[in-house]
């Protein structure tokens, strides 16, 4: 035992402050500098049926135990396991209700004072968000009383943007197109969710592709678009699903708008005075016509004035939010095969083509004349490694930083690595002459700041998940451990510590 006095000078040696030592752990800690293993290991289980050591000269029989015949139960019904896997639980009745938590509304989505706090998603909106599959399983919604999101810097920017586009100011009717990237767990998908919830509060039309991968892994039916262009393929079932998502989520908006253009492709199915909801439902009922219906719906939503003969019931169209998750899957060959058994490039699917064409500003006429936001995100956990995408994103970042494509600093694709030209072209957006048309931007999500992280961890504490004093120092430590405030990591830390108390 080392004395805590220095006997030569009779002063007390400085010792580690008690507070920084993790509480209650000192006794059971094994390794000198870890808290985790000892903490999270389950208490030592008593072995069942203690093995008595064989007595002297006692033979140990090598008799094998007979295998019990396994009782065969019926396998779960078709789709049951998948439903369980995709189930999204948004509420945990055991978590504490947080007093004074505000709901997202048109007023507070631009309020900079709320930065770092949690805004709840309004309960009536949850059905809409579920319909557009904004929530993903394993996002940890199920540990809180009700879903809410952190207001971070990017959220406020997004709020201002959406407010500006639908407001009456100079930004009215602007088209903003963004690609959201960031490290794993940096909140890209939740950023899309926030955009959707803001768009719903502003009564926009929200069109989403919740998982880009679903369209290219050859899990839905496909067919050539028409006899004229057999090399372009349409996915009717997927389009019908998209229409159904759009209709369920935007029922209020779509049912208040009515058809204002002629749709020769749909022939007699379209009746004058039909609401857009009814129009979209045509495609859901008959998937064979789904693509034509979707095109009709798109022309209706992007109409700025009625066609001759439809003037009666025209109402101005709301702005449109288009979101897409996991963009990189659309940048390679799909799992579909063409008629001569060659893989079809994802850009040859007309569905994909349509959504990718939104990234490029139209030369003369704006893509979305009523304004809108096109928000596509990449994924860091499930994404194919595609060289073309890497280069294209680098080029995008360089353009955004003001590097001219003709300058030598502009990143170029390595000619030996065979970057896909179609991919490079998809991201290569020229400046449009239309004033409201924004060029493609890259938004990289990083970690939260310390203040935002503190607000986030307080949310855990106030929900009763974390029994720890959320001090500056404690948050700073978690902030560092989470790789500079990466929100997904912070959430894991908040969850794990729940077990400690």
């Amino acid at each position, binding site marked *: 035992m080392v004395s805590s006095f220095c006997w030569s000078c009779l002063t007390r040696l400085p010792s580690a402050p008690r507070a920084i030592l993790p509480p209650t752990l000192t006794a059971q800690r094994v390794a000198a500098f870890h808290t985790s293993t000892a903490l999270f290991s389950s208490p030592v289980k008593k072995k069942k049926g203690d093995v008595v050591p064989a007595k002297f000269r006692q033979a140990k029989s090598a008799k094998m135990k007979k295998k019990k015949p396994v009782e065969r139960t019926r396998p779960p019904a*078709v789709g049951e396991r998948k439903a369980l896997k995709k189930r999204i639980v948004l509420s945990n009745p055991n978590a504490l209700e947080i007093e004074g938590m505000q709901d997202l509304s048109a007023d507070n989505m631009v309020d900079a004072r709320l930065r770092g706090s949690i805004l709840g998603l309004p309960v009536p909106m949850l059905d809409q968000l579920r319909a557009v599959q904004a929530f993903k399983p394993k996002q940890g919604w199920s540990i809180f009383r009700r879903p809410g999101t952190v207001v971070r810097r990017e959220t406020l920017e997004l709020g201002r943007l959406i407010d500006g586009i639908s407001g009456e100011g100079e930004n009215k009717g602007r088209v903003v197109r963004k690609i959201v990237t960031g490290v794993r767990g940096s909140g890209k998908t939740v950023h899309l969710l926030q955009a959707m919830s803001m768009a719903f509060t502003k009564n926009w039309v929200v069109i989403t592709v919740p998982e880009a991968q679903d369209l290219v892994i*050859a*899990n*839905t*039916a*496909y*067919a*050539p678009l028409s006899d004229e262009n057999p090399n372009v*393929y349409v996915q009717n079932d997927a389009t019908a699903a998209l229409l159904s998502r759009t209709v369920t989520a935007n029922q209020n908006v779509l049912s208040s708008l009515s058809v204002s253009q002629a749709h020769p492709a749909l022939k007699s199915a379209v009746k004058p005075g039909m609401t857009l909801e009814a129009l979209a439902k045509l495609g859901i009922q008959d998937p064979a016509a789904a693509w034509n219906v979707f095109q009709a719906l798109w022309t209706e939503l992007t109409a700025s004035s009625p066609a001759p003969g439809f003037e009666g019931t025209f109402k101005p169209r709301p702005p449109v939010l288009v979101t897409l998750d996991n963009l990189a899957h659309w940048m390679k060959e799909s*799992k*579909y*095969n*063409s*008629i*001569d*058994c060659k893989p079809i490039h994802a850009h040859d699917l007309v569905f994909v083509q349509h959504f990718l064409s939104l990234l490029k500003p139209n030369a003369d006429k704006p893509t979305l004349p009523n304004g809108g936001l096109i928000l596509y995100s990449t994924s860091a956990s499930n994404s194919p490694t595609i060289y073309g995408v890497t280069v294209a994103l680098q080029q995008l970042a360089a353009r955004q930083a003001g590097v001219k494509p003709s300058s030598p600093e502009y990143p170029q694709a390595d000619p030996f690595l065979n970057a896909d030209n179609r991919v490079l072209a998809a991201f290569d957006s020229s400046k449009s002459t239309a004033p409201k048309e924004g060029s493609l931007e890259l938004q990289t999500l990083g970690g939260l700041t310390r203040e935002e992280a503190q607000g986030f961890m307080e949310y855990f504490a106030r929900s009763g998940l974390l029994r720890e004093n959320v001090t500056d120092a404690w948050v700073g430590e978690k902030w560092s451990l989470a790789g500079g405030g990466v929100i997904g990591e912070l959430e894991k830390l908040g969850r794990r510590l729940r077990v400690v108390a």
Partner: protein
Amino acid sequence: MVFILGVNFPERNIVKKSLESFFGIGNLTSTRLLARFHIHPTCKVGDLGNKQVLDITAALSDMKIENDLRRQYLDNIKRLKETGTYRGRRHALGLPVRGQRTRSQIKNAVKLNRMERRL
């Protein structure tokens, strides 16, 4: 239940697997067939349109599969035996035909190469 080439398949079966149940159609042929008629690989038999079923049936009836193929197979072996070639003899003896070693592991040959060849 969907009839494809006279065989009844339950609707929940996958088309690719169903095609591969025919003698003479394997992974490659079934993939090609599906690509030819624009059927995605996870498609269920129940999801096939009428036209697609007819197309598949027509394509299958043009191919040499099932009994035709079996007969050709046996004829080839028979020809080898009758001309008295080494390969024919090996078939008859129940030994490996293609120069494999016979010191070990000739179970398949023993099982399959009989006078009355099973398929």
